[in-house]
């Protein structure tokens, strides 16, 4: 298994994608830092500043919204093999297919966590620097900020795994990207507008992520627009457990989907 994981890591780092991924991770962190420097009090509409707990959570929550980006990286794990027609060679080298797929899951989850770590370090550095530059302190204790950053980094690892599952199910990388993007940016938000269905939101990946990262801005904004009460998110630990459940489902899909398919 370690040989397969090493091979997958070599496959990933030998292509240009990982350089773009590192740039995207730095960019996501830098974007958060930029928001911190601008200050939530200067947003439109204005929000509480960084010196408040809510202001700090808003800036970190925006970073949580970008957790979708490494999911795109995850879709390439299996779908790119079909796209570039390397899947047959890979399955010849690992005919017990679940081993190759498990190696991809391990490799890409590791890559997703690394992505999250880079993002969190850049964002965290920017956040503390911005607060210092403004001559104030963050509205949350440093320990809590660091804990939120770690949760966001872990969320990014989980989302990467979700991407791996989607890529294995759809095989067509473009289709996987479109479905995944549409779901996170359109379907979940739209569901929040449907009376009754929005009760499910806390259990959907976006709701669970919001619970984990403590970012309720989207749900609150929808509630404000519709005049309905905002749904209650799960506690952070339960949100994390729901996300891990989705990750397990994605891993199962990634391993099970290609097992019996003919590779033609």
């Amino acid at each position, binding site marked *: 298994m370690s040989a397969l994981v090493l091979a997958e890591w*070599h496959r990933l780092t*030998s292509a240009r994608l990982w350089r773009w991924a590192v740039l995207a991770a730095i960019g996501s962190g830098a974007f958060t830092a930029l928001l911190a420097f601008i200050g939530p009090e200067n947003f439109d509409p204005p929000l509480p500043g960084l010196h408040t707990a809510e202001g700090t959570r808003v800036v970190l929550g925006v970073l949580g919204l970008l957790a979708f980006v490494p999911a795109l990286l995850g879709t390439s794990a299996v779908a790119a093999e079909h796209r*570039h*027609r390397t899947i*047959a060679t890979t399955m010849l*080298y690992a*005919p017990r297919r679940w081993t190759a797929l498990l190696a991809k899951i391990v490799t890409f989850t590791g890559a997703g966590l690394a992505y999250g770590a880079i993002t969190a370090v850049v964002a965290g550095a920017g956040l503390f620097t911005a607060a210092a530059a403004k001559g104030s302190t963050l509205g949350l204790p440093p320990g809590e900020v660091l804990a939120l950053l770690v949760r966001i980094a872990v969320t990014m690892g989980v989302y990467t795994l979700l991407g791996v599952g989607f890529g294995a199910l759809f095989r067509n990388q473009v289709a996987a990207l479109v479905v995944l993007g549409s779901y996170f940016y359109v379907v979940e938000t739209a569901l929040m507008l449907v009376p009754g269905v929005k009760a499910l939101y806390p259990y959907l990946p976006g709701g669970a992520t919001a619970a984990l990262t403590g970012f309720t801005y989207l749900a609150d904004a929808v509630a404000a627009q519709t005049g309905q009460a905002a749904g209650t998110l799960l506690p952070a630990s339960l949100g994390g457990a729901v996300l891990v459940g989705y990750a397990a489902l994605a891993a199962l899909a990634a391993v099970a989907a290609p097992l019996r398919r*003919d590779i033609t």
Partner: protein
Amino acid sequence: MTAVEVRGLGKTYGPVAAVTDLSFDVPPGEVTAFLGPNGAGKTTTMRMVLGLVAPDTGSATIGGVRYAALRRPAATVGAVLDTSGFHPDHTAGAHLRVYARMGGFPRHRTEEVMDLTGVTPFAGRPTRGLSTGMRQRLHLATALLGDPSVLLLDEPANGLDPEGNAWLRGFLRELAAQGRAVLVSSHVLSEVEQLADRVVVIREGRLAVAGPMTGLYAAPGVLIRTPGADGLSALLSGDGVTVERTATDTLLVHGLPADRIAAEASSHGILLHEITPVRPTLEQAYLDLTGGPA
């Protein structure tokens, strides 16, 4: 021991029977050509042998073991498939290193197969910029990483220039001479003729013939054009000799060499306008078997 054993293999896609009750062997130390028209089921058969496609019936084993159950599959069987590709960002060397790691092969093996297959000069180039011939060499290098005793190659000569083809022929003959079993599917019959020891011909998914290459050919003959065709025909017909009248003044004789026929005609004063030894071609034998145009 038979390297590859195919027994009663069958695969149906919807209403189409791609392969039906197919059985043949690929012995070690020989090159076996796998021939058949487009859509005859060659690629499906190879993929079933390699466990990429699940057969509906029958079995395919390598040394008595299914491919997926081999302890070290890539070190036992090397395969080149017609639809395989490369990640366009990977260099040729990086592609080989990925699969060397996957197979658990030592690092120096990558350099060895690159030298063997002529990949070294373009090892640092991204695969998206490789010519078809370069890609074929890289496929072959990938198949050889594990130093396998069985090679299954689907159209490995596609895209090779004449020099590359000559190289491939010599290379595959050498691999067979080392005791490896080599199965090569091809459409270039002239190449196969110079390469293979044995042949498996399939038609519409069913076996047409399998056996030594020499058994595929009709017996060589001698074509004779003479105004005395009747007399010569009567003179030559006999034990072990067949005379076929192909035109008013033309005979095709099997069972006698050209010099004996010339001597007989001369001794009986029969004038010959033409006497030509006729060597049957693989192409004709193939077309006869597959029902193609004569």
